[in-house]
């Protein structure tokens, strides 16, 4: 086999052909490393440049480290709008451009949503609400030049990270509160559909602005919506199909009119029951493949859906990567490649961001074994 560039390797896998080895990813919104974990990794490697984060504590890994680990992907991301600025309060809380309040415990590691702004649950409130302006030109300032520069190298698989804070279902419950929105879905569906429609329209506008700049230059476009938790779907399949799926389909169709890049869909959790639905609406790559969640057995997923889906992720970040030994990590990587990588259709990545406290040696073992293992 000719020596494959990272891009060719990844495209082969995305087209369900088996390359020289499984392509590897690090650096996406759901596949990067948390700042504290990155600091520890840098110490062990002996790398001392300051850490850059693209949001909160999500690290933009340095190109030297991506080269060292032989990661095949490179990310581009939408910029911040000019009309909105992140203003951090003294207690490190802030309100994002959707109006959602985020807080972090003192000495804590993560921000979480703590207050949903749509309190009344009325259509009038939706009409009055100050929605983000998708067409703010700050979002794409310099983006085409940056992407062109990567594209011209023709070396890496270029992944355009998600241009919006979260998915459709995600944003609806972030804005309205989980209990309120989930009750609205059943008891006030007219209101719920209006909110879903508004959120979808803004998402479509954001993708339009983004992909008009770079849609012709990228290999993968990221979208997503967290539909599951550790052991179940958040909302039932019937509710999902009636209330959310039509809008996800609309969004995906819209994206596919703007780019030929492969459609990457992120959903955490136990989502087996709706994977056929995701395939039906045009999902080509499924991430993160949380194999510790109920029903997400990788061999079964490959057997049942491997013809239609590429699996991207699947390296356990709940138990093995943070708490296993380097040997256990290597064995885990081999197992996943055997389960998911035959005939292509697999990109190796942590099945969510690498957490603080993850031993650097485990991270190095993950990528070392990913590089070494092949089927021949």
């Amino acid at each position, binding site marked *: 086999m000719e020596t494959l560039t990272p891009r060719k390797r990844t495209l082969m896998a995305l087209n369900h052909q088996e390359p020289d080895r499984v392509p590897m990813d690090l650096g996406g919104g759901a596949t990067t490393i948390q700042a504290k974990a990155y600091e520890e990794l840098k110490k062990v490697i002996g790398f001392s440049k300051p850490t850059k984060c693209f949001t909160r504590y999500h690290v933009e890994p340095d190109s030297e480290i991506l080269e060292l680990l032989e990661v095949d992907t490179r990310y581009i991301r939408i910029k911040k709008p000019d009309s909105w600025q992140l203003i951090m309060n003294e207690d490190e809380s802030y309100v994002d451009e959707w109006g959602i309040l985020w807080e972090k415990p003192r000495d804590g590691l993560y921000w979480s949503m703590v207050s949903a702004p749509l309190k009344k649950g009325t259509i009038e409130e939706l009409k009055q609400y100050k929605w983000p302006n998708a067409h703010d030109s700050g979002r794409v300032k310099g983006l085409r030049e940056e992407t062109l520069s990567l594209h011209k190298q023709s070396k890496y698989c270029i992944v355009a990270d998600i241009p919006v804070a979260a998915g459709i279902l995600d944003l609806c419950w972030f804005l309205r509160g989980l209990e309120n929105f989930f*009750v609205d879905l*059943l*008891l006030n569906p007219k209101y719920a559909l209006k909110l879903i429609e508004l959120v979808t329209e803004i998402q479509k506008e954001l993708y339009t602005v983004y992909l008009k700049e770079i849609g012709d230059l990228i290999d993968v476009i990221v979208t997503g919506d967290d539909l599951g938790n550790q052991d179940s779907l958040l909302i039932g399949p019937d509710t999902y199909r009636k209330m959310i799926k039509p809008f996800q389909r609309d969004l995906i169709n819209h994206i596919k009119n703007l780019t030929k890049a492969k459609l990457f869909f992120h959903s955490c959790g136990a989502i087996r029951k709706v994977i056929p639905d995701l395939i039906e609406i045009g999902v080509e790559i499924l991430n993160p493949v949380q194999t510790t969640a109920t029903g997400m057995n990788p061999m079964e997923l490959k057997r049942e859906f491997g013809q239609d889906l590429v699996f991207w992720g699947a390296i356990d970040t709940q138990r093995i990567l943070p708490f296993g030994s380097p040997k256990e990590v290597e064995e885990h990587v081999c197992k996943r490649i055997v389960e998911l990588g035959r005939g292509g259709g697999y990109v190796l990545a942590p099945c969510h961001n690498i957490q603080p406290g993850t031993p650097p040696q485990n991270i190095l073992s993950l990528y070392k074994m990913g590089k070494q293992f092949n089927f021949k």
Partner: protein
Amino acid sequence: MSEVFGKIAQSLIAGKIDEVAIITKKALNSGSTAKDILNQGLMAGMGVVGQRFKANEIYMPEVFVSAKWMHIAMAILKPLLIETGLASVAKLVIGTVKGDLHDIGKNLVGMMFEGAGFDVVDIGINVEPQKFIDIIKEQEPDLLGISALLTTTMPNMGETIKAIKEAGIRDQIKILVGGPPLNVRFAKEIGADAYASNASTAVDKGKELLGL
């Protein structure tokens, strides 16, 4: 009479919010006691909701609507229950550990325990060990529930249980822990009495620990 309670349970399970007040008041007017409506109607209904949720036959929206049904009914029944001096089944104090702001699972667990007739005191998120101790002394619960979502905040569960031991009140309560990154082995290591993998199982485990 059991037909009355059956109707109440069915309406709660189906989440027919528009009929809560009518059905509950009708039952009271026809001679059912608040205690029987609670035990044989509401708790029976929530028991079915819990089992169906555990079996993935229904999901969070349906559970929230049934819990809302129960709240509305309880608002009607509570004054009558207090009048007759009725104690709840047992008391649960529940909170998310220090450093962790996640509460979806904790809230669901709280709803399920309320549905099972427990008095539930939810002390919120990002709870310091000392606050757990203070609330245990103040509320005297039978059961303590501790929740964590993150691998990075799980260790704070161990710290919390250690602090409870050092405060000399460990023997007063049973401790139940839960959250996605946890397992039985971890629960044992940190000195919890039990681990529950989901909200419905939490009620089963809680009752088992208390011999109910």
